[in-house]
């Protein structure tokens, strides 16, 4: 988890995206803004599964879309990739408007730039591990041998070496999703979409795979959109989190933003069980700027929980530094201790 400055360029820009279901969904475009409230649309049997979603995702950022089931998070993800056609809005990948692309150009963009991991793995039961991972390459018409070479690299990347010729039915759920992850990265995509990838797995395996995703992001950071209903997972993986409620994005921010400055009651209730020490960063609790390092140093984007042992063990001053090692300021020990003691 790194705090994203505004330095990286925008990779995926989403503005005012709507997805409306209902018998007469075609008429939606001609509705004035005033007739687009949930009540007004319900009167005409329209349901806004995604309503006026707007955000920018920067290159290399992990953007988590979070919400309860039925909040529209998977629909939003599918609108971004045009697996579901949005009713209205604009979606730009590296500046290119994908809603204006025809079938062929869209397929081409997906082949080159996108990878996706599915909730129920979506492995092809007739293909081996290697065959499944090589599938996106084969679709592009890459020669079999070459595709399998690349697939072999990915097999070892996700830790499945020795299982290349197994069929999906011979793998555990966690191993199957490792195959799914490897397959989604086979074409080395710039954009990585993960649709509740771990919700079908049990908690221990889920934690393993979350580590795996973090490791893969460290080795090669991709612009990722990750959908989940698990707040814990979101906090672990996200640079920023968007919380959805009934088709609307109610707040976008870092985990710390959501916990310390919830925009609505809904968000407040959502994050109520999160221990603040887990999300509040050292850089947020600085009492005075300093020019030089004195005593222990901690990284500014480390959470209070991360550095708790240092705070407790040492009574001296602790200096907070930025990623380059430059000092930012002295940690407010009192506030840090209060944060650690805060009831949830």
């Amino acid at each position, binding site marked *: 988890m790194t705090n994203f400055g505004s330095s990286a360029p925008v990779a995926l820009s989403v503005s005012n995206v709507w997805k409306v279901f209902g018998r007469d969904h075609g008429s939606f475009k001609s509705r004035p803004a005033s007739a687009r409230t949930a009540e007004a649309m319900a009167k005409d049997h329209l349901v806004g599964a995604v309503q006026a979603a707007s955000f920018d995702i920067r290159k290399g950022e992990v953007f988590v879309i979070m919400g309860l089931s039925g909040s529209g998070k998977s629909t939003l993800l599918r609108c971004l*990739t045009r697996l579901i056609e949005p009713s209205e809005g604009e979606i730009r990948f590296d500046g290119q408007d994908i809603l204006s692309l025809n079938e062929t150009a869209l397929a*081409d*963009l997906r*082949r080159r730039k996108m990878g996706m991991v599915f909730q*129920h793995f*979506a492995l092809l039961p*007739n*293909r081996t591990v290697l065959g499944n991972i090589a599938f996106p390459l084969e679709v592009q018409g890459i020669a079999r041998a070459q595709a399998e070479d690349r697939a072999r690299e990915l097999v070892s990347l996700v830790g499945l070496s020795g299982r290349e010729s197994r069929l*999906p039915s011979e793998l555990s759920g966690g191993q199957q999703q490792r195959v799914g992850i490897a397959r989604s990265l086979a074409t080395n995509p710039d954009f990585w979409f993960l649709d509740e990838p771990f919700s079908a797995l049990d908690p221990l395996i889920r934690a393993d795979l979350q580590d795996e995703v973090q490791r893969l992001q460290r080795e090669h950071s991709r612009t990722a959109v990750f959908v989940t209903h698990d707040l814990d997972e979101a906090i672990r993986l996200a640079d920023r989190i968007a919380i959805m409620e009934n088709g609307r994005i109610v707040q976008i921010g870092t985990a710390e933003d959501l916990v310390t400055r919830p925009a609505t009651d809904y968000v407040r209730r959502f994050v109520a069980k999160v221990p603040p020490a887990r999300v509040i960063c050292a850089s947020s609790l600085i009492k005075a700027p300093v020019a030089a390092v004195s005593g222990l140093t901690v990284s500014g984007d480390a959470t209070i929980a991360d550095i708790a042992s240092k705070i407790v063990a040492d009574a001296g001053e602790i200096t907070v530094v930025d990623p380059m090692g430059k000092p930012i300021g002295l940690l407010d020990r009192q506030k840090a201790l209060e944060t650690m003691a805060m009831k949830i």
Partner: protein
Amino acid sequence: MASDALRGKGFGWVYGAASVVVFLAVSILVLPSDFAGSPNAPWLGVAAWVDRAMTWLVRDASIGGLALSDLTRALAAAAQAPIEAMQKVLAEGWVTGAGFNKTQILPPMSWLGLTLGCAFVAYRLAGPALAIFAVVSGLYLASFGLWISAMMTLASVLFCVLVALLLGLALGIRAHRAPHIEPVVRAIMNVMQTVPIFSYLLPTLLLFGYGPSAALFATVAYAMPPMVHATVLALQAVPSDTLDLARMTGCSRRQTLWRVELPVAMPRLAIGLNQVVMMTLNMVIIASMIGAGGLGYDVLRALRRLDFGAAFEAGMAIVVLAVLLDRMTQAMARRQSAGTTGTSGLRTGIILAGLVIVPTLASLAVPALALWPKAATLSIAQPLNDAVSYINQRFFDPLDSLRTFALLKLMNPFRDALQMLPWPLAISAVAVLAGWLGGRGAAFSVFAMGLFVVVTGYWSATMGSLYLTILAVLLSLALGFPFGIWVAAKPRMQQGVQLLLDTLQTLPTLVYLLPAVMLFRNGDFSALIAIVSYSVAPAVRYAIDGMRHVPPERVEAAAMAGCSKWQTFRYVRLPAALPTLLLGVNQTVMMALSMLVIAALVGTRELGQQVFTSLSQGLAGPGIVAGLCVACLALIIDTLLKAAAARAVQRNGVAHD
């Protein structure tokens, strides 16, 4: 909302009652003589119209100057070639000249080679048990002199399966892609599956001429519907995630179909293949009776000679062929769904080819390998015939009195009573029942189908069919349900019973006639026995399924409430199983109806007989219309029982198919 629905229903009932009264009044006033009696002469010459239409089709119809019959005959000839080629490969070998000038260019595949090859594939698919069964089957067919007939049958089966499979797949894919055609296809398929098997033969005979290729077209028309259905279901069952994957990886339409949809759907498609193979075998056996040659013809010829032993031998050949084909295709389907690797691979191919080719080449030197020597042919026909006549002599009195009693005291009175029934009353009563169970649409369609039977002049024959069906179904249920319920409580027995049921259901219908005719000669009683022995299997199966799927927590709740065994059965198990049991009744009826037509071979007097007679006289009109009457009967009963099952589901939970 609820009161609206009730009011709507109320109005419906008022209209319904009014229309029934009007209909009855008109029937009495306009047709006084026919009200009490049963019309046998058609009011509308539907049969004659169909006849004329068929004649026109065959004689005069043309497409752009090309006569339709020429076209169909050409198609028949085109289809003839591959079947003959396959028969040559399997049974006859390539021969030139005739009589003394006959010289063989290529030998047919050796029976030994084919048996070994089949055993090898069986071993790879399902293990040693099936391989041994394959060897025994091959030896039986060869040593009893049934090899050539069996291979003629097999050649037709293989070719028909191939055609039905490809056409079924293509149609299924089309139907899946265009959701609005799908219900239409399904409706056509439903009718096609209830029309009796003989009705398919008639138009094809007229259009395609007499011979194996006419049978091919009838067989394909008969066996294709389940493949279309299976294809649509299999494609619908492809998970949406998997389809999203295809789109996200940028698959083209063709790539999506061939690399994603079909492979993922393969296990279900393989189940469809199994159905196609079994239906094809059934139809090929029936079709071979009209002169295409093969095992079915052998059975019928032996029956006509009253040579039960020979009929039994040929019948057993059908049985081993059916069981072998069924088990192999099922094993294939199972392997598919287990996701284990197939039997493909170069090494397997080489072994297989070696197993088949080496004995075939050796047969050039050793003729016994080409065809089992006549001198060494075995037969148990004589002792079997002796046994049958011994039983018939020794037990003539009890058997004959049983038959006479059943016929005179039960069956004939029931039939007469049904045929006495005034048809307007009968149709209205059934329509009202359908309306009560399933709503206005059901009432209307039931009424229309009933009327069709009346106006075409088959009312009496239909009642003849209905009486046999009702008796057979009641007997099957009386035997099957208690047995199934009993077995369901004995987990250890279930596997054996399931295997037996599976085997019974794979046997072609013709086989079921044999034991009945051996013991009770021709007539309605034999037909009844044959129908019951065919339709008892689904009764048992659904009884087991229904009882096994009773929610265990309800049984526990009953036990905690202190119910006795009988009370648990009466108040918990039976209501929970009811929807499934009703489906079982439906399935039993459908099986009984499909057997009814085959039972016409032993001399019944009802619709099946009408169809069969028209077939032997080459009368397309009556044959097709009588066949449609059977379909009407089946669809009426189907509508009633499905509606009843749906009501039971609403009250008691899920039906298990």
